[in-house]
């Protein structure tokens, strides 16, 4: 077992043991060059199950995910649970996170037909680090905000209990130099890396016909739509809106996806055009794009919402749902124009969790009604949306 260290941009170190793909060697860190794996924004996720769904969720592109629950890998991995895009597309399959950080990896036997977590990560070229003080790391991220980080192989002679003394100034300086030059999440456009590149049609016989603007859609959004009978046309998020309209869909779904919504000018323009024509549902990034499209602003949250336990209140009925969430940006309430009502709010911090337009059949949710992982309490949103579409 190889020792590795997670470094944060502020210089803090979290030693552990490497698994999955090998950790980065110091020599591979060239300032200004973003690596696909091993480096990224460090966030924590508080879900106690569902690591496989997290690993394969395109919204986590470019992020190093710390699981706060210590035991991970317990029931293995199964491609069937993957969240990477609509079913048949194999070229997009795999692990989306840049790396995973754990307290206690399970690497024992798993059920028939499943793969162990270390094997699964190796297969997809993703490094992991375990035996880490994930509690300390989480409190750090909570108090200081999320930060960039990189997992590097520990140098010769490193001892975790004497980390400060056994790491050289030079080693640390080079890692920090790399991290300082690493692009921050604000202003990063990652959707083109994870969304589909060509139109795909799922369930061609189905109805109604839903056009899905794919910014890195989770598989379960497609499954939720298809299970309600829909034919789903998956479009690259950069597709020409006129081409989409020419395909005469009955409705539009704007998917989730990674990164900062504010920089997705093309997508915002498309959404603006399309939602004027078709009933529209936005999920997560999709919700943020719709908000931008109506002129509202988004902002980067201190450490975001990443978990499956967030209470969301329906402001009209007062009912509360436990939801699955994964977002680092949110919509500013003050910036919402007149024709928007706040539909859903977070019952803990009051942040906006969903909006409706008063003049158009457009609604959106900041969280993940498709769950996966997480509670299925909000699946009725798909139900309601399909009803809305059918009624038009």
């Amino acid at each position, binding site marked *: 077992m190889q020792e590795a260290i997670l470094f944060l941009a502020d210089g803090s170190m979290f030693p552990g043991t490497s698994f999955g793909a090998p950790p980065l060697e110091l020599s591979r860190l060239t300032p200004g060059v973003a690596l696909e794996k091993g480096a990224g924004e460090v966030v924590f996720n*508080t879900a106690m199950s569902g690591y496989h769904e997290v690993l394969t969720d395109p919204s986590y592109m470019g992020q190093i995910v710390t699981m706060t*629950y210590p035991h991970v890998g317990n029931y293995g991995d199964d491609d069937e649970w993957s969240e990477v895009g609509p079913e048949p597309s194999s070229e997009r399959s795999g692990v989306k996170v840049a790396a995973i950080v754990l307290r206690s990896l399970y690497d024992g036997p798993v059920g028939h037909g499943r793969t162990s977590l270390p094997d699964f990560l190796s297969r997809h070229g993703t490094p992991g680090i375990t035996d880490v*003080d994930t509690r300390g790391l989480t409190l750090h991220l909570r108090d200081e905000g999320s930060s960039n980080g990189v997992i590097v192989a520990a140098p010769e002679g490193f001892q975790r209990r004497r980390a400060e003394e056994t790491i050289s100034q030079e080693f640390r300086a080079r890692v920090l130099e790399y991290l300082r030059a690493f692009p921050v999440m604000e202003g990063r456009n990652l959707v083109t890396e994870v969304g589909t590149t060509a139109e795909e049609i799922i369930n061609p016989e189905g109805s109604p016909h839903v056009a899905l603007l794919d910014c890195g859609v989770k598989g379960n959004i497609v499954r939720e739509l298809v299970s309600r009978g829909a034919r789903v046309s998956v479009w690259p998020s950069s597709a020409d809106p006129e081409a989409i309209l020419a395909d005469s869909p009955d409705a539009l779904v704007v998917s989730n996806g990674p990164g900062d919504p504010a920089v997705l000018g093309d997508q915002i323009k498309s959404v603006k055009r399309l939602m004027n024509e078709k009933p529209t549902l936005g999920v997560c990034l999709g919700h943020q794009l719709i908000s931008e499209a109506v002129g509202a602003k988004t902002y980067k949250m201190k450490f975001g919402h990443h978990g499956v336990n967030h*209470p969301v209140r329906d402001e009209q009925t007062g*009912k509360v749902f*436990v939801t699955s969430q994964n977002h680092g940006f949110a919509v500013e309430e003050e910036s919402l124009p007149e024709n928007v009502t706040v539909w859903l709010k977070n*019952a803990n911090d009051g942040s906006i969790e969903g909006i409706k337009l008063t003049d158009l059949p457009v609604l959106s949710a900041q969280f993940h009604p498709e769950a996966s992982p997480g*509670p*299925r309490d909000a699946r009725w949103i798909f139900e309601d949306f399909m009803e809305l579409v059918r009624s038009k």
Partner: protein
Amino acid sequence: MPARGDIQSVLIIGSGPIVIGQACEFDYSGNQAVRALREEGYRVILVNPNPATVMTTPGIADAIYMDPLTVPYLDRILEQEKPDAVLPTMGGQTALNLTIELGEAGVLEKHGVEVLGAPIESIQIAEDRGKFKDVIASIGLESPHSAFIHKVSEGHAFVSEVGLPVIIRPSYTLGGKGGSIAETRGEFEELLKWALSESPVHTALVEESLLGWKEFELEVMRDNFDNAVVVCSIENVDAMGIHTGDSITVAPIQTLSDREYQEMRTAAIEILRAVGVDCGGSNVQFAVNPDTGRMVVIEMNPRVSRSSALASKATGFPIARCAARLAVGFTLDEVINDITGQTVSCFEPSLDYAAVKIPRFELEKFPQGYATLGTAMKSVGESLAIGRTYLSALNKAIRAAEIGFEGIEELDMNEEELWSMAARLHPRRIFAVYSLLKRLGGENMDRISRLTGYDRWGLHQLLTLAALEHEIEAAGSSSPPADLLFRAKREGISDRRIATLLGTGAREVEAMRVAENMHACYHFVDTCSGEFAAETPYFYSAYGEIDEGAALGERGVVILGSGPNRIGQGLEFDTCCTLSSISYRELDRATVMINSNPETVSTDFNVSDRLYLEPLTAEDVKEIIRKEGVRDVVVQLGGQTALNMAEELEAAGARIVGTPVKRIHDAEDRGLFYNVMKRIGLDQPQSAMAPSRAEVERLAGEIGYPVLLRPSYVLGGRSMGIAYTPEELREFLQRDIVVSEERPVLVDQFLEDAFEYDLDAVSDGEQVYVGGIMQHIEAAGIHSGDSACVFPAYKVNRTALTKMKEAAAAIARELGVVGFLNIQFAVQNEIVYVLEVNPRASRTVPYLSKSSGVNLVAVAVRIWEGQDLRAQGLVTPDTEVLPGVAEGHCVVGWAVKEAVFSFDRFPEVDPLLGPEMRSTGEAIGIGQSFGESFAKATSSAGSELPTEGRVFVSIHDSDKATLLPVVRELSDLGFSIMATRGTADFLFQHGVFSEVVLKVHEGHPNVVDHLDAGRIDLVINTPLGRYTQRDDDYIRIQALRHRVPYTTTSSAAEAALEGIKYLSRGEVAAEPLPEPVRAY
């Protein structure tokens, strides 16, 4: 929705005495509910005849009743208090069943009382296994294949259909009582009959066996706006077939994929909705086939439960507190989570640790009762530990259970024995499994998994531990690399265990650790995995991670709790610890509570300034003291567990509060103590140590029969015994006991027909306040914890009482007692003997505090804080009964305490009482006469004294003279008397007619047949000598099964008569506890 304004007062029903399956978790939940409702401005009335509880402490509720939990008394209380509503979901099955009865009897309607929490119809659905199954099917979920059986013949038909084995489960019983697994047809018939008789509605469910399936529990909360959350998920390490209460469990669920888990979560919420639990918490249990993933619903409890207490402690989410708020109209998003202070209660807790629960069994007390575990609960307590990994939590929980293991350890058995133990549902099975894995390695994992139903995930963890232990062993006694020690500590292995593995001493390991500056660090239990900063300091330990929370410093005082419940050390001690924390905080000290028992009030996060859910071992306590920078440690309140640590803690620099450690030692050591007694001129029964069997016989002859024998080492069995004759002595010695130089047998003169008294006092070293002297109803020879007892002493001999007070003062001064002192006396022929002295708070402190109106714990804490008894105004020239001695008085008329047993859990065990304690709980009866309080205590303890019918009498010669007037009076009251031949002859000679009844071996119909037929309403049976009266066993066992009151001593029979005379008058009086004499 805001709190309901249309109700002003709420009645909360408690769960009554502690029995297996219903323990102090209901004191915890009831207490939370009372506090929550009072905070919302409601007037709260409480009924609970359990004197050991915190909730019945004056001041906790607005009105506290300690009357029997029966319809007539509740009717009376409702009449007097006129509450607007009743909350039945806090008092376990007892409160639910009583509420159903109240509803059926029309009492609720009569008083216009609304039921909060779960409506009666929902309770009925959830509790009736048949109706419940229908509901499950109606929402598209699966239940085990089953049939609802009323008659044995129906049962046979069902078995012909599904085959054996089958599970038999009676409707409406506690903790699976009466439940069983039948393997053969013969067994089936017998077990089914038993189940039908156990069920109050005489129905049972017979169902397909799911032995070996994975078992899970979810704790769900739902509000009346249909919002729902799952507070905690629990996985049973022991698969289906072992009751969840007897299983090792881990929270959260470890081995379900997210898809499987979410399916279960959704199902659980739908079940609450379908059953109609509108506001409150419920526990839903599932089984999952490990091969196919098929999910089946086992049951739901529409109330707070043992599991919800566990879940509250495992997550930090106060389920009962929240449930009480929901019951009065709040919704989940309106109830702020007290731990974070900034999230709402519909934020599902997320854990960043594992919480492991270990059951504690009474293998020594009931060896025959534990051959195998099953679907009926048998454990008496549990310990919970939290760790960053499953192994660390498991190791900590095991050492916290105080069952003689330091953590997971291998057993000293051969391979064959290990396999056979692993194949059985044995309480020690996990140790056998570990032994196999450690010895044989991982190749056997699949085989073990199939054999035991243990998931491979958990077995793999054990395998990791085995590898680590092998590494440590290989390091030998030469100091192991610090890195290895570090890894061991991170997995929760104790210094002592490491020492054993290294072949060195715990002190040496501790020294190595300290040299490396390797100390425990502490994390918050924060309900949110660190996402929000916690406000409530509730901690658990880890190694090598961030250390959270600042030290309290010398302002703090550590209170050592009493650990898992066990026979002899239970709720009473927890109440003392909790009350002391309250008192200390009133005096501006900051308290640090350490305890591992998840059922308790003391482990509620708002009882103390700091809460540590940690094992009560010297190592763990020392680390906490170090972290908090606290010096003062209270050891007098946590029973023997706390007291036993005193020396080691003092050696480590702690200041033991109150009585000096050396003097505690003097009182604990029987030999030393004997000398102290001699010096101050008090009588003790003659006694001697016998180092061999021959010596036992010789010394017994010398001391004179009968003798009381206390071996210091027993193989898996009962230890104490009384021998009346040399033959009985020999029979006793033939049992599995060791007698040697190192393990001598203590031979005591047995004080026959002596009255026993219990005295609790508080002393400041000079002055002594005697809280009260209680008299036992059973004669000496029946353990003080098992005997009914009455305050004030009812057969009073003033000189004897004075002598006891003098003795208390002399002992307190001689030992330098600062704080608590408990003495047991026996009085025979006017001579007062000291049987035992305990330099700590005893079991009777809460009972005595309530009935004397003086909170003795508050008095002791004030002494420890420097206010002596004079300064407190308790010992003053006006109150002194002896120089420097004052005494408390009963302020409630009469208070009888009756012991409560859980023998029905152990059908194989003879329920005869002796010098070893076997009761699990106690009930109180308060009244204006001895008879009234005795009758109430009996009723609260679970059986009703009859006012008419038949009394069966079978008495030993030596009791005949004493009992004759009792029997005669019963006969005069209109009872018909049935007696065995000898007794009948004796009665006839003295002019009392009786029907002669055959003994068991004399043919049919015999006494047992009559009991079975319900023809006997009271049993008076006084056997003599413990090992000769096998014949009587059946009578007692049968009486117990049919809940017929039975007395085994003449004094108990006399007391029963008093009670019967009271009941015959037909009064139903209920009074709330009066204001305490002294307010603190």
